[in-house]
Structure formats: C-alpha cells, structure tokens
C-alpha cells in the first residue's frame, strides 16, 4: 500500500539529504572508510534494532536490550578470563541464557497479561543489576580468538575497513528481512501487531508468536552483546546504557508504527544509518556540542511520529494511543486474548 511505504520513503529521503549535506562539507564522507565505519560503529545497535523492529511490529516494546548487552559482555569476559572457557562455548552458553530470558519475558507478557513496558522494564533492572553483581569494573578479554576476529577485515582500495562485526550486522539485517516478509512467523508478527483479536480468529498462534518475538529480541540483544565485547575487547557492566532507546528511535524513524502491524526491517537499517550520519557529522565538525546528535534525532523522532499520526488518522484505521478505538470491533468476537 502506498501509504504504508510512505514513512520508509521519507526516511530514505532524509538519509540521502543528511548524507549529501555531510558529503558537501566533508568530502571524506564519500570514502569507504566513513561508510564502513557506519556499519562497524553501529553494528551492535543495529543488531539490537532488528530485534526491536519485530517487537514493535508485534505491538510491544523491549526495554531490557541494553542491559542484556552489558550482561553478555561481562559474562563473556569472566567466563573466558576466569573460567578459561573457549569464547565460542561462552557465546553459545550466553545465547541460550539470553534466549531463555527473552522467552520468559514473552511468556509473562502473554499469559499474565502484564504490559510489555512493565515486564521488560523489570527485566532491564534485573539484568543490569546482575551485570554489576558479576563485576563492578570493566574486565579486559585477552584471548587469541578475539585478536583473530579483530584482524578479520576486508580493506577497500581507499583503506576503508569492512570489519567482522559489520558483516555480522549486515547478515542479521538480511536474515531479519527474510524472516519478516517471507516466513509464517513474520506474517504472524504483522498480524498480531495489526490486531491480536483478529489474528487469533484467523488462527494465528498468538502466544507462541509473542514468546517467539521476545525470545528473538533477547537473542539478538545477546548477539549484540557479543559483538560489543568483540568491538571493545572487554566487558563492562555500565555499557550500553540507553541503547534500548536508541534502538526504538531507529525503528520509529525507520517508519515502523509504534502501534505495530506496519513497518519494514529495512527501514530500521536506514534509521540506524541516519544516527550514524548525524554522529559522524558532529564528530567531523568538532566544534558542535555532541549532544546535537541527540537533539537532531529527537526532532526527527518527533517529526516521524507526527507523520505517522497524520497518515494513520488519514486512513482512519487506528489511533496512536494504543487502544485502536476507531477500528470497528468485529461483531463475531467472542474469544478474548
């Protein structure tokens, strides 16, 4: 539908304009070094945001992702450094722990009918606290495996580096697009985000899908934590504070409706790149206060919400209040939840 794609097109246009503004002032924006830096520096945020896209598409929210990243990092640092576990084994263990945690949150949200905001807020505090209990200071990870990964990169002719973490980000993104648009799970997510009552009537397994969505989000946040650990070669309990909000901002700026049901994983990628362009511009300038990054993203967020509001009320389908009051209830609805 034309209206559905409109926020995505608007996002792409904004990205191109911001990029051109940067390019016009700093010719270095055209180098592969800067473009590869976008992917490398935003990889952990991007992976998190792909998971967040699914959560928001399903009409939920996940505030625990930043804490999960920090916990993963400190867990890996201690498992590798103090217990002498091989990094790949540590990664496997923490991915299982992370996914289980996410599935647990999803189950609480679905079966106890508690709003996702509260459940994942509790998860956020719980996991952040857990990270500090494991260790208070930053722990370096000294393992040859980490050095090998850091040395895995492709150098472009003009010396830009496509790093391992950037490649992981791109792969997760492509997989996310495939899952969202070409699998039953993806269609179920969209259906639940549109209306979970209707989805239930259509035979969508609501419970399983909601648990799956939060499991996926936590799994990807854990993967992002591993990427963050590789990126900084350390674990730090104070890491990634507020990343959940950056991820939500990227998803919304990327054209996904906060009420769920409408949006694109590819849009989230553009949302991430917009953050990268603004941050790089501010860094290149060197005289602007770096908080301008947040101000511009805040403005964009506000404008995109306004755009969504305008488009959705134009369609008359639902409101942004989350209650979808304007959609006429189906007369046959007898099953609830």
């Amino acid at each position, binding site marked *: 539908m034309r209206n559905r794609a409109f926020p995505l097109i608007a996002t792409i246009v904004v990205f191109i304009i911001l990029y051109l503004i940067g390019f016009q002032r700093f010719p270095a924006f055209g180098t592969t070094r800067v473009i590869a830096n976008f992917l490398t520096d935003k990889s952990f945020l991007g992976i998190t945001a792909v998971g967040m896209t699914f959560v928001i598409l399903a009409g939920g929210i996940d505030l625990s992702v930043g804490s999960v990243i920090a916990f993963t990092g400190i867990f890996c640092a201690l498992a590798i450094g103090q217990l002498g576990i091989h990094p790949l084994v540590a990664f496997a263990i923490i991915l299982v722990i992370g996914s289980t945690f996410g599935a647990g949150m999803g189950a609480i949200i679905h079966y106890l009918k508690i709003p996702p905001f509260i459940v994942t807020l509790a998860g956020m505090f719980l996991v952040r606290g857990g990270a500090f209990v494991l260790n208070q200071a930053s*722990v370096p990870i000294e393992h040859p495996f980490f050095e090998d990964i*850091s040395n895995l990169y492709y150098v472009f002719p003009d010396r830009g580096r496509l790093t391992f973490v950037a490649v992981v980000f791109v792969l997760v993104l492509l997989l996310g697009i495939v899952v969202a648009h070409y699998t039953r799970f993806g269609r179920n997510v969209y259906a639940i985000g549109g209306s979970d009552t209707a989805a239930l009537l259509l035979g969508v397994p609501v419970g399983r899908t909601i648990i799956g969505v939060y499991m996926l989000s936590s799994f990807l946040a854990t993967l992002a934590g591993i990427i963050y650990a590789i990126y900084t070669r350390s674990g730090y309990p104070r890491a990634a504070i507020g990343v959940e909000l950056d991820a939500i901002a990227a998803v919304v700026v990327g054209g996904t409706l906060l009420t769920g049901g409408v949006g694109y994983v590819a849009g989230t990628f553009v949302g991430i790149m917009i953050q990268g362009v603004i941050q790089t511009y501010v*860094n290149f300038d060197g005289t602007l206060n770096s908080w301008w990054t947040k101000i511009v993203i805040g403005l964009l967020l506000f404008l995109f919400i306004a755009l969504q509001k305008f488009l959705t009320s134009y369609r008359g389908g639902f409101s942004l209040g989350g209650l979808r009051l304007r959609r006429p209830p189906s007369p046959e609805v007898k099953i609830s939840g």
Partner: protein
Amino acid sequence: MRSRQLLLAVLVTIFAILGSAVLVHAQDQITVGFAQTGSESGWRTAFTEAMIAEAESQNINLIFSDGQQKQENQIAALRSFIAQGVDAIILAPLVETGWDEVFQEAQDAGIPVFIIDRNVTADPSLYVTRIASDFVYEGRLAAAWLATATANREQCNIVELYGTVGSSAAIDRATGFAETIALFPNLELVASQSGDFTRTGGKEVMESFLNSLDPASICAVFGHNDDMLIGAIEAMKEAGIDPADDILTVSVDAIDDIFVSMMNGDANATVLLSPNMGVQAYAAIRSYLAGETLPALIPVPSAMYFQDTAAEEYAARTGG
C-alpha cells in the same frame, strides 16, 4: 497534498539545523582530534575548556568530541578522526580496556595517539605517551606538608577520607600518602573510610570518625578530594570543632570552593590537580611530529595552595 508539505517542513528544519554551523578550515595548521569522556564533573568541564582555549591560543585546529560517558561514542569519534585524517589524536579514556583495535587502526593510518588523564590497558606500542597527573605524587605532597606542619608535635593521629574504592586516583593518593607518613614516626593513620569523592560522603565519614574516635585525639584530616573535605568541615563545625585549628586539613584538586574555605580559615592546604593539561599535550604532539622521542609518561606538575594566598588565587580565578 498535506503530507508533501509536512515532508518539506521536515527537510527545511534539518537544513536549518545542520547548515547553521559552517567552519572554515585552514590548511597550514595542525589538526588534532580530542575525544573526551563526557562532562560529568566541574573538574572535567574545566579540563575540556582548558584544552579548547589552549588549542585556540596555539592556533591548533581542535576537533572536539564529547563521549557522553559512553565508550562506543569515544571509539566512533576516534574512527571519525582517522577517517578525517587528523595529524594526531588525544584520547581521555572513559575506561581502561577496549582500545586495542581502534588504536591499531590509527597506527595503520599513521596517526599518533596520545592518552591524557586516565590510563589504558592497550599495548604501549600502540600509543605515543600518556599525559597525566601523578596521583602518587599528590599524596606525597599532602603528607609532606602535614609532616612540616606537625614537626613539633609528639604524636599526630590522621584520619583519611578515601575516594571511590577501586579508582586509580584514590588508590595512588592513598599509596603516596601512606609511604610518606611512614617516614615520620610522629604521624599515624588511625582511620580511613570511603566518602566516594562527594561532599555528603565526606560529611558522613567525618561524622562517623568524630563519633567513633575521641575528637580531641584527631590531629589532622586528609581528603582525597576537596569536595569530601568541604563536607567534613561541615561535620566538624556541627560537632563544635574548629576545622583547620583543632584539626588540620589537607586535600587534593584545588577547586574554587576550597579557596573560600581557606579564606574563612576552615581549611589549611590543597594540592592542585591541574585541569590544564593542554600545554603538555600539545607540546608533546609538536615534538613527536618533529621527530623527537617522548617518555612513556609525561607528568603534569602539581602545586600546593595555602591560606595566605587563597584570597588572591580565588580572586584571580573568579575575576578573570
């Protein structure tokens, strides 16, 4: 269509914001990228301002980035500096770990990295040098002053307001202080407790010292920073003790407020933790670019201030 007008408004706003800051680059001056941790304390802000002011006076094109207390922002800033091809990078690291990879990238691009303030765990071959205050020396200075001030006393019991547990500033100041008072048989450290570098923390710790020990037996208090000592002054006053006369005081940082306390006769001495490291940093960069070899650590000089010059120093700081 209204949506098109809205989009237009969006774009115009963005243009207005980003277009407002246009900077002319001069080609002959050196360009230095400086990645700061953030702006968490008054000392940190003074440090940033001194770096920027010093760069201006030396005609250095300083590209400044505030990391907002996030390592990922600092790493991204370093990558931007590399992509821009600056002549040198100065990093005030937020944490000690996690810099190897981006330092390697800078080295591969032929850009020297200079560490300022806190330390890093990265391989020393990846950066040129570190410009920092010598915290151990600050502790020694404080102890040496106390030794002089109490030379005619038979016994002097000292209490210590310890900084944040685990921070290098606290550990090193305590070490320097302890090893120096060990040289003087009349000086004895009787109690030490963490006040977390804050005023309320210092006040609470001092209150507990005054309750658990005989206040008359305490001869001096050493604060790991001025803020804690200012809190302790309040606690002493509330307990009916005259700070700086009944109990001698010495602390570190030389923030503006401690000069007010010294002018009021409530504090004896403070050790300067210089926020102006720009002079040493830029000098180090210039000599490195000129081909000179540098020592692994370049200390920033410390100094002490006392009651007699407090008014003068305070006026100089706040007036100009």
